[in-house]
């Protein structure tokens, strides 16, 4: 699994808008405690989708960091 971490909720919502236009399955979750995250929620996707996610979110102009769990 990879967890996408964002600075603010605004970017999570913008990321979701980008992801919704694809078939990527994602899950919005409370940020796991061991990830010191900036905002309370994060997005979880399957590890194999990392490249695709980077491409989609890059296009959507979203800033994020990736944590592998």
């Amino acid at each position, binding site marked *: 699994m990879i967890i996408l971490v964002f*600075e*603010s*909720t*605004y970017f*999570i*919502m*913008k990321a*979701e*808008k980008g992801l919704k236009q694809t078939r990527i399955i994602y899950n*919005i*979750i*409370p*940020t796991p405690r061991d990830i*010191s995250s*900036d*905002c*309370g*929620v994060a997005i979880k996707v399957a590890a194999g989708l990392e490249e695709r996610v980077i491409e989609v979110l890059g296009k959507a*102009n979203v800033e994020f960091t990736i944590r592998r769990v």
Partner: protein
Amino acid sequence: MKKNSDTIYADNAATTWPKPQCVIESMRNFFFNVGANPGRSGHRMSVNSARILFDAREETAAFFGLDNSQNVVFTLNATHALNIAIRGIPKKEGHVIISSFEHNSVIRPLTYLKEKEKTTISVVPVDCKGNFDMTEFKKSFRDNTQFVVINHGSNVTGAIAPIRQIGHVCKEKKVPLIVDVAQTAGTIPINVKKDNIDILIFTGHKGLMGPQGTGGLCLNNESLQSFFHGGTGSSSQEERHPDFMPDKLEAGTPNIIGIAGLATGIKYLRSIGLNTIVEKEKFLIKKLINGLRDNDKIIIYGPDSRQERLGILSFNIKNKAADIVGDLLDKEFSIMTRVGLHCAPYAHKSIGTFPAGTVRLSLSFMNTENDIAKIVSAVNNIADRS
């Protein structure tokens, strides 16, 4: 919303009423089915609330032609947004240019700065017909001019300021332009890029058809300092307030139920089309003026018939005080107006009605031809009394 059939509401420049049914439904839905705070907790109700807030930003950005919805900031009203903008540009001993048609929500924060920060203010004259003095405007720039604030549509006379040309001059002078669209958002088309607006200030409860307690700013390639700090749901480990948008300029729990209503109001305008609204309001105000202008006891202020105007009309009846006329319209004819200075003393000075004020009739596209006929008949009736 169905209004009481006897009441004619003609105070839409204060706040529009009635609101579209869908606006009320969206707030009801929020209240019963969403409820939670946006961007604070990780559960699905909170995420749904964040989705509503995000959607409202996207709607607002699209409505005003702003590229990036990250630069839409929600506030409680236009006054709150104006304070954020005016106080967010640093200005020790700076200089600011405004027009003589500004609302107290501009004049008072600037008067405060004048006293505290030695800010100097130039006031560009706008005449009684609403003509903005472009020559005087160009002459008023100084080396320390920090920004210009212009009221796009007069809440007193309905006159419309030539913001595109004003913005053009500001671009040449490299001075940011703040435009107060409290009266024009939802009543005439506005595009931050085409109209050369750097900071757009809107209120949600007038032409945008949202509830009271909503408003905001759109920053078009401008940044502001924040003077209001607190919880944002982001960077909670930091003691310092975040410096990324929109959190930078939004602290504390937002009026999310109101914002849900505002977003629906904007969608509603989009669905009927702004041009339809413009045409309807033009038609109604023309009918109103035509019904009053031949009575020589009625004095009508503002733009003449060849000029554009909003659905706002200020008038007086000779030898009758505005407050008495307003009270008769309410008590005898169930017509709601606003009398006095309309929070814009400079504007009344410009049209020669300070300090007595005027009676203001202000329409929305929800008004009907029948409303206009009743208003015309009532005002003429009062004017013709000895």
